[in-house]
């Protein structure tokens, strides 16, 4: 099929302004400008486009929350792509950047925003500098800046680099970081779309790169056409980031509803070396890990079907593990990641990730007992549902679901454990003060 998002695969030079325009670029924006802003929102609503950042919230509904009475409104583009195993936004930014800019501008028009801020993760240094050039091209063509296309409406587009924090992909932490504050999530309500909750307190739409990149196609071809792709509840295509033990890791843009089996075996080439597939992390480190059973492999990749098997579609960053992988090691690895990335604001997440990491270290070092498995399971459960943002839940998932689905892997570590006598452990600890 031809791509909607990864058009760089079909037209290699589409990152160039001229090539993009030759292939219908910015026509959608021009069409949107000829429509009432509300009509644009309605069209996106009708397309059933859902947020591609992971939460899957209906995009048009989100835009519709913006109070039109407020004079200052913003669009914040979430390009902080930092979920483990996710590399879809990067490909859009590198190979099809004008489509993102165009999508963001259509969103800006729809909510009558005064500025678009593209927040990129700190490691996207080169990407951001290239993107700045693309924005300049759009500006020269009269799509950015004052009195855009003679409509009397003005909108600036800026890029902003983060400082390397996973949590800044969470929308309210992103807004804090954009404002120059510590990247910690905010109390909601007020939500970003409300007065007082957005960037500098102004109503703000925060959308993922992939989400906005869908928008020009929807405006050009219409919501009805878009809904023909994918399933009823999960319309359109999705970029699946496949990594781990597959022959051909990479990004695959496919209609939603494709099964895991088709994605992993037909497109990604299956597990190399003829090994068996053991487990799948369907949404990076943050989603529940699932065993690669037949039932799982036959599950369509949609928001609705993935939740039925006790996992989530999330950002669709699928990490595949073959039979050689020790799932305890995976749990320890992912926990280290969340311990490193917890912002520290909420007690359960700040203390819990640290505690889990300490115990997992001991499990991996053969210094733990069976009771330690129950301990981390319980600690992780105590972290669930009690934190300000979802990171507390994300950090609990790898423990709860690895123990639930792969308990044997844990048991192997504790059964062969060589536990030091308690007195020695006490001696090893520094003297109290």
């Amino acid at each position, binding site marked *: 099929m031809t791509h909607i998002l990864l058009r760089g695969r079909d037209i290699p030079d589409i990152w160039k302004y001229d090539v993009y325009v030759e292939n219908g670029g910015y026509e959608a924006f021009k069409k949107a400008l000829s429509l009432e802003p509300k009509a644009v929102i309605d069209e996106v609503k009708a397309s059933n486009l859902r947020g591609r950042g992971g939460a899957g919230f209906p995009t048009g509904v989100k835009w519709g929350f913006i109070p039109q009475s407020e004079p200052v409104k913003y669009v914040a583009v979430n390009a902080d792509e930092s979920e483990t195993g996710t590399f879809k936004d990067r490909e859009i930014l590198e190979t099809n950047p004008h489509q993102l800019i165009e999508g963001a501008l259509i969103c800006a028009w729809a909510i009558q925003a005064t500025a678009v801020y593209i927040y990129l993760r700190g490691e996207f240094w080169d990407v951001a500098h290239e993107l700045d050039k693309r924005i300049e091209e759009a500006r020269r063509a009269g799509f950015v800046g004052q009195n855009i296309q003679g409509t009397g409406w003005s909108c600036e587009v800026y890029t902003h680099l983060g400082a390397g*924090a996973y*949590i800044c992909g969470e929308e309210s932490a992103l807004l804090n970081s954009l404002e120059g504050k*510590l*990247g910690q999530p905010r*109390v909601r309500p007020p939500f970003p779309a409300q007065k007082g909750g957005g960037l500098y307190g102004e109503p703000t739409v925060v959308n993922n790169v992939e989400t906005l990149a869908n928008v020009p196609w929807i405006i050009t071809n219409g919501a009805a056409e878009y809904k023909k792709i994918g399933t009823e509840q999960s319309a359109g295509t999705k970029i699946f980031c496949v990594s781990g033990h597959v022959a051909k890791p990479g990004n695959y843009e496919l209609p939603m509803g494709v099964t895991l089996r088709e994605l992993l075996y037909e497109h990604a080439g299956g597990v190399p070396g003829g090994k068996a597939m053991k487990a799948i992390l369907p949404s990076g480190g943050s989603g529940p890990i699932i065993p690669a059973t037949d039932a799982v492999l036959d599950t369509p990749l949609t928001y609705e079907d993935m939740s039925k098997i006790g996992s989530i579609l999330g950002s669709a960053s699928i990490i595949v593990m073959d039979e050689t992988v020790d799932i305890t090691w995976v749990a320890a690895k992912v926990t280290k990641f969340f*311990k*490193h*990335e*917890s*912002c*520290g*604001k*909420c*007690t*359960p997440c*700040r*203390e*819990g*990730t*640290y*505690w889990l990491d*300490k*115990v997992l270290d*001991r499990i991996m070092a053969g210094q733990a007992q069976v009771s330690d498995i129950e*301990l981390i399971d319980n*600690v992780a459960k*105590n972290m669930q*549902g*009690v*934190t*300000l943002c979802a990171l507390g839940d994300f950090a609990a998932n790898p423990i709860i679901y690895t123990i639930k689905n792969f308990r044997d892997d844990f048991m192997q570590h504790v059964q062969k454990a060589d536990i030091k006598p308690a007195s020695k*452990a*006490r001696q*090893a*600890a*520094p003297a*109290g*003060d």
Partner: protein
Amino acid sequence: MTNTVRIIINDQTYDVPAGMNLVDAAKWYANDDIPVFCYHPKMEPVGMCRMCLVEMGTIEKDRATGQVVLDENGQSKVRWMPKLQTACTTTVSDGLVIRTQTQQVQDARQNVVEFLLTSHPLDCPICDKGGECPLQNLTMEHGPGVSRMAFSDKMRLDKHVPLGDLIFLDEERCIQCARCVRFQDEVVGDDVLAFHERGRSLQIITNSEPGFDTYFSGNTTDICPVGALTTADFRFGARPWELTEVPSICPHCPVGCNISLSTRLDRDFGGKTLIKRVMPRQNEQVNEIWICDKGRFGHHFSRSEDRLEDPLVRERSGRLFAKSWTDALAAAAEALKAAGSDVAAIAGSGMSNEDLWALRQLLAGLGSRRLGAWPPTHAGAEVVAQVGVGQGTNLGQLGRGDAVLVIASDLEEEAPIWRLRLKQAADRGAFLLVMNARPTRMDDFAAQTIHYETGEAVQALLALKDSDAWKQLAEAHNLVIVAGAEGLSLDGSRALAGAAANILLETEHVGKPNSGLLAVLPGANAMGLHYLGFTPAATLDIMQNPPKVLIVTQADLLLDDPTAAHWLAKVETIISLDLFASGLTQQLAAVALPIQSFAERDGSYVNGERRVQRFYTAQGPMGQALPAWQALSRLGEQLGQGTAKLSAAAVMVEIAQNVPAFAGVSFKELAKVERQYPDVGGKDLYYGGTAYRNRGGLGIQIPTAADQGQTVARFEAAADEPPKTRGKLVIVPSVRLYNRERTFRPSALVHARVPEAYAEINSADAKKLGIQDGDTVEIAIQNAPALRVRAHVNGGAPKGTVIVPRHLSDTAAPLAVTVGEVSKAEG
């Protein structure tokens, strides 16, 4: 009348004001203390600690009809949220239902406490907070009782990190609640603290140089819910349960903050009672639950080495000898008898009302009414008595629709808690106009700033009527004018207060709460001096026409006034009632009588808002010192003026009978308290911090003439003649909060923060005089020794003006605005 909403807490229905925070509402109305660590009733909620999780739902209503949906039992149906919700981030709304005592809530609380304790050192036995620690208390109430965290897994961090000279951070104890960070940011406006790093590495840091650079740092130790922040003054000094709390009033400035003196029998003071720390005592109308660092750390003078301990009499040789009280009083009485009515008194503003009454009675018995108030720098008290802020004023209520004008005062230095509360008023939407001859800290919070020429404060105020700001002031719902006296003569300060009063009268902002005049008077009891008949004008008269005998009570004349030696030379006999062996006492006094400080006896002060407030005896006397009222009363007895009074309370009875302003005031009335919102200081220390519940009295506010319905006539408000410079520079004394006054010098821990003596010189003037920033300069004024200070040439002074902060060295800076010559000093 505020709107109320109906909420249900644990199956009980309550009507509470709309817009109220749920934690506050549950506590105030339902007596349900929802545990919190990060939430504080004086700050915006952040929902970080997760301790306040409760079951939450709403009463279900039919969407079409708006009717409450009933279940099969006829009870209103509640739509419960799937997860627990933080009470602190919830504003009450109609139909809100919460449960705070269910198993699910108990488990959540236990889990949060367990998480907090994983990395907490549990060093309660050596922790200053132990015994009054929210974490300790909530652990006892909700904690799991056993630790599942392996000891070797615990985090080890620095335990003695100085954030500045005054506050230490124990990184292990910190639970990252951000109360200190938010206090500095939201309440104070000095955002000198911040979080560094993230996750479990999150730590409090200071980003100012010097560290934790603010006048309010001590408050963070009160609201810190663990022992992470401790003061350099108190840390390792005592255990909370050993301390006796004595209600008192801060003696340092006109705000009159309510404080609590924590005392114990102490090894460091021969086993006798000693103040170990000063804590805020809640008085929502005066200082809420805050005090400044001068108030907190400025108590050491009460036990300083240079306290006067024995009565002294100067013999013919010119040397002072220690005498008994009988002999010393006899010597004083002899001198007074010989002088007849040619007697005058100068009383410092640290004297209590009872002291002042005794002094006034003594002089009246001798036939003199020459009662001088010290220092004679501000004549606004008489205007305040007419049109001061109305009875019931609470600066904490000023907000949107109100206006505040601050003029001729560096409020941060002169009255820090007023500055803090007015900054918050501006945050709440009050229009804050700041007018000064030079930039001050208050400018940072002002909606508008006006800088006028030195000495032209009155002109600037008169010109306001033609400015854009006028409408904001005139149409404000409430208007408070805060008038200082910087750059003004005594007459100038009277004119400025008068001009301010005229604005208040014209715009009808008198005689009602939250409107009126506040004068930034010097000292803790300047209003008491006024009400008891002591005036700065009388002081100027005494300086011009010295009497034969001058009684000086608690006034450090030589350190305050460089010309004092000059005019005191004409006084025959000086009787000094002194806290310290001051220059006056040591060099000039014929008789020196040791008196007790505010901490050693009881009494009352009248603060700048005219609130009579009572303080209590906290520690024993130094040597033979007596309360001043007693010494004076016994002196009167020697002179045949009747029997000496037996108690301060008895003196107050006499004041109340004779001075109309004190009608109805008695120590008993002053001790009355009522429940204050927010309800801090109870057993739930986690709620408001360790500020003390007020058990010593809220005081009584003296009504103004306007409050009593009297018609107040317009005031004379002629502009001051600008000083004739004749080629010299105008020397403007200013006030620095941290200085080397005898009442602050003994607080050694603040020394590093007291600036070296300096003068701000305008760059144009400096260039003309060949002076550069950092040079040593000499300032010469008439009848005074030359003052050597460091020149600061950095934009702090207007052209033609030299700003000289008072009390930064042992040489007195000018008392009032004057002219002088500045020259570069040799060497």
